[in-house]
């Protein structure tokens, strides 16, 4: 009801103005195009050449799609894609489940406690670099507070960042600590904007808690959930800072994500900017495909829910 009204208001707002309303958008549009498209095309240009920025004397040779072929035979590159998938998958799933549960708890029992929400979202407000540094110290096996606290519970000194599996776990844990509040906030906002009537009606019909959740809350919440997950997915693809500060992709290359790999190849470790450009382009394509699939899937899911 409310949504439709706003939409109608919007229509009236525009029809009230002259046809030249597009002119008002034009400057912003031009700037957007200028800022985003040239780098994009330049990336494509780079990706089909063999350019090493630290070795200008080697020249700029056109090599077609060879960079892309190299990626698929480079097991460090493949590994970085796998690591990214594990990391993002782990982060988003855990954050979603925790966020949903916490949102439901707060919505049911602490509705009036706005201070609680403020408290919970504090981690989100810190710069990731700071969080990475603080956690790095806390996870230090000999001087860190985490192992110290685990001692009485019988946990031996855990090598949080220097064992491949633990390192991956630690990164996911830190990200979950920081970004679960985001999921919580989105879902809580969704929950609190839901209309009351369907809930009252279902209670009258004698529905239990689970049934209310499954057949009323979830379907109504679905659009919010989809948006929250898409936001988180896109943002999670850029978790560069935390990974870089906690492990720099190590031990070895066991937590090296695609963006860290591209950064190492293109500028930090080698100067193979062309190879890095190809890797980033693949990330871009994969992201677009994944998001499209996810949105299609979520539409299907919505129909199933009703």
């Amino acid at each position, binding site marked *: 009801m409310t949504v439709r009204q706003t939409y109608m208001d919007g229509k009236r707002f525009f029809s009230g103005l002259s046809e030249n309303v597009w002119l008002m958008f034009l400057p912003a549009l031009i700037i957007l195009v200028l800022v985003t498209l040239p780098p994009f095309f330049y990336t494509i240009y780079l990706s089909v050449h063999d350019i090493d*920025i630290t070795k200008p004397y080697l020249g700029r040779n056109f090599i077609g799609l060879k960079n892309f072929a190299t990626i698929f035979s480079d097991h460090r590159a493949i590994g970085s894609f796998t690591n990214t998938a594990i990391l993002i998958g782990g982060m988003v799933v855990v954050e979603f489940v925790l966020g949903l549960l916490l949102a439901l708890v707060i919505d049911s029992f602490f509705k009036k406690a706005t201070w609680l929400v403020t408290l919970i979202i504090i981690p989100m407000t810190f710069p990731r670099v700071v969080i990475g540094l603080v956690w790095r110290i806390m996870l230090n*096996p000999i001087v860190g507070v985490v192992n110290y606290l685990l001692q009485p519970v019988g946990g031996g000194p855990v*090598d949080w960042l220097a064992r491949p599996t633990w390192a991956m776990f630690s990164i996911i844990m830190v990200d979950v600590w920081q970004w679960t509040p985001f999921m919580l906030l989105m879902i809580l906002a969704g929950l609190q904007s839901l209309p009351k009537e369907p809930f009252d009606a279902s209670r009258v019909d004698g529905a239990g808690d689970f049934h209310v959740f499954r057949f009323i809350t979830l379907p109504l919440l679905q659009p919010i959930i989809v948006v929250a997950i898409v936001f988180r997915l896109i943002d999670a693809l850029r978790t560069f800072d935390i990974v870089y500060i906690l*492990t*720099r992709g*190590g*031990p*070895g290359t066991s937590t090296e994500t695609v963006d860290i790999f591209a950064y190492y190849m293109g*500028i930090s470790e080698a100067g193979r900017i062309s190879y890095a450009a190809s890797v980033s382009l693949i990330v871009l394509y994969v992201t677009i495909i994944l998001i499209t699939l996810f949105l299609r899937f979520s539409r299907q899911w919505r129909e199933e829910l009703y």
Partner: protein
Amino acid sequence: MRRIMGLVVLVVFAVTSLVYAQGMPYKGVRITVALRSLPETDFIVSKLAEFKMMTGINVQIVTYPEQQLREREVIDVSTGAGAYDVLAIDSVFIPEFAKAGWITPLEPYLDPEYNVEDISAFVRGLLSYEGKIYAGPVYSEATQLMYRKDLFEEAGLAPPQTMEEYEEYAKKFTRPPDLFGVAMRGLRGNGMNIYIWSEWLWSYGGKYFDENWNPVFNSPEGVLATENYAKLLQNYGPPGVATYGWDDVQNAFTSGKVAMIIDATNFYTRIEDPTKSAIAGKIGYAVVPAGPAGRFPGNYSLGFAISAVGAKTEAERGAAAEFIKWATSQDIELGKALQANIISVTRDSVFNDPAFQAKFGGDWLTSTVESFKITDPGYRPLIEEWREIGDRLGIAVENVIAGIQPVQEALNEAALYAAEVLMRTGKLKK
């Protein structure tokens, strides 16, 4: 119009010759220096007013964090932007920058007053490419052994002289979780684990390349060296040591939980500071232990070089050279040490200065002077491909320490990659 132009030229000429007459050939020239904030560079920046009084050159400083400095500089010079006239460069990247034509040799600008011979020999080697000096040193270090004097005295031991003793003592002092025998860099990187690991490579008789540029660090000697390095850290190092950077090594040592470390000579300032270190006053210093092939302390230097991309005119290059000569002069060097307690000495005259000796005497000084004397500038190969090769090797070594990959396989992979890189640049024939 032409007449006015002529007049302007005449006036400018007259003014500049006047300035020349006063001995300020670069008065009014503006230069920009890219550097990273270190006690060394902070000291130089604090004295800039004096430099301006002397030369009339306006110096603008742009500061970046350690990680970003090199990238900013590479982006600046590779795109031709040229925002900086003077670049602060790690010694290992001098060949890369020189080969690409991004920096100008400093040699033509040096005068007898600068006394280049006074700069420690290995530092001169580090800052040269193909026989020419490209940079003036701001900071220098070697690696040395630092050990807990109190623990050694208690056990009746002298500092280890050989790799065998080093391992033996490491074992002796390992009593987890309170004390670990050693801590050294495990974190990947040409300036991280490879900086210390190279000592093992050389000590056990290995080397980086043969005479035809074939990578040979995966030879039996290299494998043995890596095995021993990894074993030390795995068995006698604190948990997590596989990802230790220099700061972690320092923190572990100052927390009092480690008996011996091998790292930079300039750790002295921090580990002897009672406000930051639980072991201040209890530390002994010695030259690194010897392997079958001898003692091989590592080395590193940070230098100021003239950007060939940024300093486009002769006046800018001249002004940049003036700045470098002043910032790395004997006076500034001694001032750094005596006024600001900075001990990353780059000149022999500072070591020989009585005031300096009175202030920093003891085994730190003897060990540092000896390490500076015997260290070889080729400790890490001075080639333009170094960064790529060293970083890939760093992954291999970290993999071994973390137990992810067996030694031979890890080194073979790195050697294969190194060969590929050298083939791309044409050093290694296909």
